């Protein structure tokens, strides 16, 4: 029994963090999806670091790693509110597309959605995967997309007309990975929002003292830290269950999404409250994380939907086993 990561797993995440810290400048962030998220320096550096080959078998030029090896990378993507379909390509879609030429090197950008749902960043993607129940279908880009502008201009959403693509295996696992990817990124984004709120509370003064010295604010931030700390291990465990092919994997990704979504909504609310009016504007870059949270929370099922999945497993099916 060991609940923790190997040095290799940690170093990979550190490498991604360093890339995102150095390459994801405010200017890059503001430069639009194509430049910031698909063909700019961030995508390039992540490609070179092997991020798009994480789940690609070695025979196709990838690293041949698994979901557990990758989960800290997903958390980093949330921590940085990274632009572009990075998690979608490298984690959600990769196992279905890893035989495409150059996939491991970032030559292909892919996104996925439930049939009838919204495809994020589909305008810069090369491949679209649509999931109908457990059946995945792959659709080449270039078809008719209907733009669905959102609160987050850096992550536009699109719908497709009902289209029949080429069927692919692995739809159920894709859904579990998509749920886990949203949960892991939400934990990362929550951590950033907590950090930003704590930092602001240490410097902003009102009534002659730092606002972080007021007990009410202290307790709000402590409560938020509690939510984040007790969401994260569920994410790691879900990654473990997927990597090990455990029978509880679907339940575990749902449990992770429940607490991650709650922590993230809590973080968004607290960060805005602590920052006051400025948190409510684009004067700070806080908005990137807020908008990312608001998109990730409902995507691939919100806390309510996933709590119902856990209820079905635990209450109805009696699948209460903790160590499968």
């Amino acid at each position: 029994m060991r609940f923790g990561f190997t040095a290799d797993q940690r170093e990979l995440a550190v490498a991604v963090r360093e890339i995102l810290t150095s390459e994801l400048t405010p200017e890059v962030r503001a430069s639009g999806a194509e430049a910031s998220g698909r063909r700019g320096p961030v995508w390039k550096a992540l490609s070179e670091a092997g991020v798009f080959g994480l789940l690609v078998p070695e025979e196709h030029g990838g690293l041949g790693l698994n979901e557990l090896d990758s989960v800290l990378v997903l958390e980093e993507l949330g921590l940085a509110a990274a632009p572009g379909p990075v998690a979608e390509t490298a984690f959600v879609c990769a196992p279905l597309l890893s035989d495409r030429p150059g996939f491991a090197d970032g030559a292909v950008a892919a996104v996925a959605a439930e049939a009838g749902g919204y495809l994020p960043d589909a305008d810069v993607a090369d491949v679209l995967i649509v999931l109908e129940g457990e059946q995945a279908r792959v659709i080449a880009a270039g078809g008719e997309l209907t733009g669905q502008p959102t609160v987050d201009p850096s992550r536009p959403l699109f719908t497709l007309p009902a289209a029949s693509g080429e069927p692919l295996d692995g739809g159920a696992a894709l859904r579990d990975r998509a749920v886990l990817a949203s949960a892991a990124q939400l934990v990362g984004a929550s951590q950033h929002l907590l950090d930003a709120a704590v930092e602001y509370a240490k410097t902003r003064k009102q009534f002659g003292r730092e606002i972080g010295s007021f007990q009410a604010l202290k307790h709000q931030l402590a409560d938020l830290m509690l939510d984040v700390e007790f969401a994260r291990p569920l994410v790691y465990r879900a990654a473990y269950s997927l990597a090990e092919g455990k029978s509880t994997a679907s339940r575990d990704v749902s449990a992770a999404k429940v607490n991650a979504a709650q922590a993230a909504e809590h973080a968004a609310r607290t960060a805005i409250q602590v920052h006051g009016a400025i948190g409510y504007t684009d004067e700070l870059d806080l908005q990137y994380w807020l908008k990312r949270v608001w998109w990730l929370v409902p995507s691939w099922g919100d806390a309510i939907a996933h709590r119902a999945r856990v209820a079905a497993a635990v209450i109805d099916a009696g699948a209460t086993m903790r160590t499968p």
Partner: protein
Amino acid sequence: MDLTLTPQEESFRAAAREWLEAHVPAKPLASLDTQEGFEAHRVWEHELHAGGWAVVSWPEEYGGKSASLVEWLIFEEEYYRVGAPRRVGQNGIFLLAPTIFEFGSEEQQKRILPRMANGDEIWSQAWSEPGAGSDLAAIRSTASKVDGGWVLNGQKTWSTRAVFADWAFGLFRSDPEAPRHAGLTYYLFPLSAKGVTVRPIRQLDGEAGFAEVFCDDVFVPDQDVLGVPGSGWKVAMSTTGSERGLTLRSPGRFMASTDRLAALCREGDRVDPTLRADVAQAWIDAEAYRLYTFGTVGRMLAGESVGAESSLNKLFWSELDIDITQTALRLLGPRGVLGADAPDAEGQWLADFLFALAGPIYAGTNEIQRNVVAERVLKLPKGA
């Protein structure tokens, strides 16, 4: 207790409903934080005024109907029920006007109020400063006495509507020697005055609902000082009282939005029993807010002062507004993040949510309101 309306109140309601249904634009106006939308909303203010509905609770001589508090509540219910445009004149009508009625000279009342009522002059508030948000007494912008008036200098921020508005009102420090709460004076000045620079601040939705206002040797004549020089704190507190209290968030707003929420739940795609419970709870809370307001009105009519109790009011509506809009977004699922211009978008829920998020922050943060309730209502000892 009698929750029925008098025949007079019923006919007031009928008249309001009839007029609103006949005049409210069929198509929503552009956002009032754009130049085009601002002017469209000003036109709507003109129209309201022409119909006699711009400032129902004011005396007739200033363009009102001398409506009672109950009639005002009725008008607000009807206004929100029919989904009429947002009031671009709100800062002036709800925040400044009560202060002018209380502290303004007759000359000021006659000069300012009619042009506020008809929408010719739209007002913006200029309260906060970079170092003085919740802590309004920390204001550092200055006013120096000169012949025939004052000269303003300094930076204001979070000035709602200032990007397109005509006039602003705010506090400046006229006596740098006096202690924090003293030495402040309440000034009115046109945003077109020489020395005024307005810098838009974009909100999360990309629109410029706020602005910074820089004053660089702005001359304000003596006639545009509101109240006695040096009494600005007292004068301003009467305004923030209005901002926090009854007039800013009328029950009609939440009655309309919870009714819309119930319809969204009834007609929407998503059937989820826990969200049904949230919808019912929001509806109950809006009802509680309406009834609580009735109680407040009753006490006001009986001549009682409302005072610190208005902090309870502010805490409740600001949390309720978030609950309502958040529940709507949950019902909408991923559709909830769509902008109002997206093909799949469902109305104004996202915009309403973003607007609601500001509720616990402005007009005295909810942390400050809880302190007020604890110390002034429950009489708990002051902390260190």
